[in-house]
């Protein structure tokens, strides 16, 4: 029981950390596409770790099954949402800020 509790504590804090990192990323990243990467972290890793942490705290009960269903739902929908967002952005001709990209390309060409 104690180990389960510690594990859940670890999962919850890691999940919170991931969400925090994702939040900073959404604010700090330069353009839409890189921000989507940050949003993906919070959708999958952040939410997933928090849900797993909550699962470890609930015994064999209906709460556990509901949490598993929520996790499955998140794992199914968030990649789909990312796909839809990226697709719409490409169609609306959003450009990635290519500053870093071009530098890298030049480096590659120099080699």
């Amino acid at each position, binding site marked *: 029981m104690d180990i389960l509790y510690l594990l859940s504590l670890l999962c919850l804090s890691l999940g919170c950390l991931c969400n925090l990192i994702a939040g900073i990323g959404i604010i700090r990243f330069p353009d839409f596409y890189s921000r989507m990467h940050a949003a993906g972290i919070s959708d999958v890793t952040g939410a997933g770790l928090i849900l797993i942490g909550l699962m470890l705290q609930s015994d064999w009960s209906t709460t556990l099954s509901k949490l598993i269903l929520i996790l499955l739902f998140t794992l*199914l*929908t968030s990649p*789909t949402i990312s*796909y*839809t967002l990226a*697709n719409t952005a490409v169609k609306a001709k959003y450009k990635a800020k290519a500053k870093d990209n071009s530098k890298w390309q030049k480096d590659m060409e120099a080699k």
Partner: protein
Amino acid sequence: MSLAFIHISILCFLLVTVLAIVRMRDLLAVVMLLSIYSLLSACFFVVMDAVDVAFTEAAVGIGISTLLLLSTLALTKRFERPHRTEPVLALFLVLTTGALLVYGTLQMPPFGSASAPAHQHVAAYYIEQSFLDTGIANMVTSVLASYRGYDTLGELMVIFTAGIGVLALLELKTDTKVSRKTEIPAPMAAHHILRIVSKMLIPFILMFALYVQFHGDFGPGGGFQAGVIFSSAIVLYTMVFGLDAALKVISFAWLRFFAALGGLVFGATGVLALVSGKNFLDYHALAEDPIRAQHLGVLLVEVGVGITVAAVIILVFMSFTRQMAENGKA
């Protein structure tokens, strides 16, 4: 202490969201912020143990109303026109009223205080007697559908009237228009991922709606939430597969019929009681055993609510979609 911290932080978030909404000129961003506002309110209701209200806020505020507002934006324009005038008088009026309201709250009993007048009136009776009277475990459902059935009928009629209003604004023509030659395109149907994932999800959404509908006696849920969830499945289908495919599932005529049917079921339950010599919406007329009668009455009423809510939302969304397609064609 920690609860107060959660309250304060959620209220601060709400304040920031509202200020952002006021400052924004991009209406698309405003709609998204309104959705966040609903999410925060839902969290707030959960913290205050009002799970049923939070559920409704989550389904209606975050889900459906955002979607309907987005469809409205698609029919109108995305950016607000800049204001020419500076309404100083209005600002003064708003500030004065706000200050008076805040001043008024100073006299209110503290939050959650048991001696507050709101908790002294009928609430004590409901808490002690509602399970014995009705045999329904969820007190919110028994108050909403049984003790306060007449109020709920009024709410349902508000939704019905709102649906009629939207249809009147969008100039719903007769169904002969559906048989036009050009097909309304379904731009999302080309995406395999969206098609497959929504095909996977729709049955579960429908199932969950039915669960919420019929489990409302025992846990959070009921007709309003179930209707919204049910309609969201059909709305998802319309968005991915196009209006024409959705009209094969259910036509405008049937939707109009169902929108009226729900209210009719609710009203007929009341009239049935009236005819048997009891008061309007007194469910004891439905069966000999009072508990059984209450269960039956609440079931009928909730089904009526669910049918009307679902039908009105689908109807409004489909009218928006049709209008969009016609605008795009013209």
